[in-house]
């Protein structure tokens, strides 16, 4: 099976961009002396999520950097290491490098490998507890790269000339010579060479900086050019004693022994200082180049808040109602006299319908969107860990709101990874336990009652109760040996909790479950764990259906219209009078295909005046839920449509037999039947509904 992973790249890049931005924001806000553990956790989680995503897409370079970043963060988070400004600097540089790598993968822009190596070394050094020494500090952009910056205003000498220091990127020697000749026309020029073979001009001229840039841009990209005002002679000509470098605290480039106010000499230490920071500089150029390329590529998607989409949907809903009203009003008009008005109204109706469809389609996506990214991940993981895993997905067509689908990706990734890494055992161990060599991992989605339930289930070793309890005690969590299993399983959702013996690249830091729980709770859902030692673990995520769309069958009883979720409907038919039988005066059963099904008269349950009380005149809809079947008696079928499920309980209370409500095309409200509850009531086989 081959899957084109590139279709998910965009999602990863979007997510990673967001995470990186978030990480930078948190890092900048971090109080080094007293870091907030929540913030540290958040930074750590961001790094972890990027690593996870990058690993999924096999961006190994990104994985490497994030892994190191994560290891260091983890030690700080656990209090094994105190946070210092050097750490924060290193993290910020790492973030820049990650952005660069990301752009490299995304837009194909060049990646400065030296900067990457530099960051890796720096992170490694820091995590080994080595205080950043000189070269490492030089790689930091803050002290070194910032040094040339404070050069404030152009300083002119007596003749009104300025001295410019022009640093060139790496260009062929003939270009350097050509430039030198060109610039020589503007004034006096001196040429030097940096340690890394790059040329530096010192130009004394009356021309402005813009003119210099204009000349240079014939030969090279002006963005790669570094032009600074060389203040050395100015300081000298101003009569300041060169032996008092205190006056120039921002530079630190004057050394007392170089005190003679001769310009070329004074500029040499400046060049040296600049030469001492090649790593930082190279990184700078790289960044600028990628920034430029990034800006020129328009983003092909925009991320919009769910709220805005909701607002849009509601507004379109209103529009549909208004349009329906207009249609009603003009229906009474004489088509001969109002032909054009009627035509326009017809067009409005079409446009409105298209608009509504388009807006609705923004939100709804099949679970397949999420599921399809897992087979490859599972396969790679299994191969890496030397395990055999059979991966099965069920209910991939179940539609879920896009807002939810995007947010379920991360938790599911963590869960699937955990299942492969910790759940499923090695083939030899499975064999020894009398299982098949290949473990089975099932990912399923289904509507259940008023919820969508997504399950990750494996037939692995199950959770180890004793180890979880021991670990919880070690971490100082309030636990007791008498806790019920369900409570023990919930412990693995505590931040920093992991029972894995080895922290691997895949999982085991205990950060995953924490994120899972957090994300699911934020969506208003719940996570349940069922685990049997030696048999397997099932993690069930239950999300509210509030945002979900439903394929519904609308049925009519009396004057009222109800929606039946199509998933429960098997068939509908008009029974023959002889097939309807009374059971001990308690209720009726219908014989359908040699099977007696309890009859649920909807009009009786909801106290409606029906058109037909006799089942042989109305229609019965055969419903199935939890393996039980029943026949629902209604007056007639109206149609089949997709409806957006609205929560009834947000402004009202739970109503027995009703799972939600929806808004019909005419703006009216229709109630969605809770089929499971109806069927439960039917077991009693009597006329009084038990659920009220």
């Amino acid at each position, binding site marked *: 099976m081959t899957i084109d992973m590139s279709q998910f790249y965009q999602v990863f890049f979007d997510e990673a961009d967001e995470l990186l931005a978030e990480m930078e924001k948190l890092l900048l806000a971090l109080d080094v002396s007293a870091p907030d553990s929540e913030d540290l956790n958040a930074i750590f989680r961001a790094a972890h999520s990027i690593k996870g995503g990058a690993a999924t897409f096999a961006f190994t370079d990104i994985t490497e950097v994030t892994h190191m970043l994560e290891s260091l963060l983890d030690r700080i988070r656990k209090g094994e290491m105190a946070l210092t400004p050097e750490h924060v600097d290193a993290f910020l540089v790492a973030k820049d490098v990650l952005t660069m790598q990301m752009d490299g993968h995304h837009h194909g822009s060049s990646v400065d490998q030296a900067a990457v190596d530099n960051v890796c070394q720096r992170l490694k050094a820091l995590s080994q507890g080595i205080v950043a020494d000189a070269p490492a500090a030089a790689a930091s952009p803050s002290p070194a790269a910032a040094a040339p910056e404070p050069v404030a205003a152009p300083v002119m000498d007596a003749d009104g000339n300025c001295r410019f220091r022009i640093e060139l990127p790496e260009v062929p020697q003939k270009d350097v010579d050509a430039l030198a000749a060109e610039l020589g026309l503007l004034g006096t020029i001196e040429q030097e060479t940096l340690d890394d073979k790059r040329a530096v001009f010192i130009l004394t001229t009356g021309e402005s900086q813009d003119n210099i840039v204009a000349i240079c841009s014939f030969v090279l990209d002006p963005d790669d050019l570094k032009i600074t005002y060389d203040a050395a002679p100015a300081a000298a000509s101003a009569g300041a004693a060169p032996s008092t470098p205190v006056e120039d605290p921002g530079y630190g480039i004057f050394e007392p022994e170089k005190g003679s106010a001769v310009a070329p000499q004074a500029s040499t230490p400046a060049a040296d200082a600049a030469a001492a920071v090649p790593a930082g500089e190279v990184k700078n150029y790289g960044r600028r180049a990628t920034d430029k390329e990034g800006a020129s590529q328009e983003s092909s998607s925009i991320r919009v808040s769910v709220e805005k989409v909701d607002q849009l949907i509601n507004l379109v809903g209103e529009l549909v109602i208004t349009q329906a009203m207009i249609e009603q009003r003009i229906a009474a008009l004489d088509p001969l006299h109002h032909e054009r008005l009627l035509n326009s109204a017809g067009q409005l109706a079409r446009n409105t319908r298209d608009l509504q469809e388009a807006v609705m389609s923004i939100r709804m996506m099949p679970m397949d969107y999420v599921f399809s990214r897992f087979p490859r991940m599972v396969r790679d993981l299994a191969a890496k860990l030397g395990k055999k895993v059979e991966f099965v997905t069920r209910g991939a067509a179940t539609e879920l709101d896009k807002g939810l689908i995007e947010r379920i990706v991360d938790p599911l990734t963590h869960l699937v990874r955990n299942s492969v890494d910790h759940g499923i055992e090695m083939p030899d161990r499975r064999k020894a336990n009398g299982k098949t060599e290949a473990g089975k991992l099932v990912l399923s989605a289904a509507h259940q009652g008023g919820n969508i339930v997504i399950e990750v289930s494996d037939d692995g070793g199950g959770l180890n109760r004793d180890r979880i309890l021991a670990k919880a005690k070690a971490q100082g969590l309030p636990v007791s040996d008498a806790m019920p299993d369900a409570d023990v399983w919930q412990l693995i959702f505590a931040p920093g909790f992991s029972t894995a013996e080895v922290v691997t690249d895949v999982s085991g830091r205990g950060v995953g479950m924490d994120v899972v729980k957090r994300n699911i709770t934020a969506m208003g859902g719940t996570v349940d764990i069922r685990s049997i030692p030696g048999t397997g673990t099932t993690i069930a995520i239950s999300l509210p259906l509030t945002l979900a769309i439903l394929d519904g069958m609308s049925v009519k009883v009396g004057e009222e219209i109800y929606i039946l979720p199509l998933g429960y409907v098997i068939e509908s038919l008009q029974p023959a009078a002889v097939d309807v039988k009374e059971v001990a005066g308690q209720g009726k059963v219908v014989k359908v295909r040699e099977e007696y099904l309890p009859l649920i008269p909807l009009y009786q349950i*909801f106290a409606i005046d029906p058109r037909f009380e006799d089942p042989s005149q109305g229609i019965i809809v055969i419903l199935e839920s939890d393996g039980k079947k029943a026949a629902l008696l209604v007056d007639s079928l109206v149609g089949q449509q997709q409806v957006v499920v*609205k929560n009834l309980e*947000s402004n009202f209370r739970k109503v027995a037999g009703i799972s939600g409500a929806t808004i019909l095309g005419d*703006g009216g*409200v229709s*109630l969605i039947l809770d089929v499971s509850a109806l069927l439960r009531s039917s077991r009693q086989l009597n006329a009084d509904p038990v659920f009220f």
Partner: protein
Amino acid sequence: MSYTTQTQTSMEAAGESAGNEFLAFTLGREEYGIDILRVQEIRGYEPVTRIANAPDFIKGVVNLRGTIVPVVDMRIKFDLGTPTYDQFTVVIILNIGGRVVGMVVDSVSDVTTLTPEQIRPAPEIGTTFDTDYLIGLGTLDERMLILVDIDKLMSSAEMGLIEKLAA
């Protein structure tokens, strides 16, 4: 439209005195007042979707710009006047602690500002409302407003609009 202008003028008045503003409405022949800050909007009566097995006074639910809002008829609940539904029937949309409820009344008259001196404690007898749900009686020239603590009333178990927390 007249509601808006009146609200504005009385808001200005409120700036000067420490009084509270009340929306006055009628049920049968009695005049009631509720805190204007709980009122989200005032609409005409639209057909509702009945909720099976709900008490009579819960007329059903309507679609209010995409949210499902229950509608209660105070005339049925408190047995005041005859519940007729025509183009003059008014629904006051209340927003109580983030929950939106529609309340059917006979008519809405105006918004008035009442100073604390104008509000008298409610007598123990003589009203259909349980005195628990009353703030007091407001006197305004010849008029008397029965001031209802709408928060308390709508959240009460008696109305059955909100799930009991204990359950």
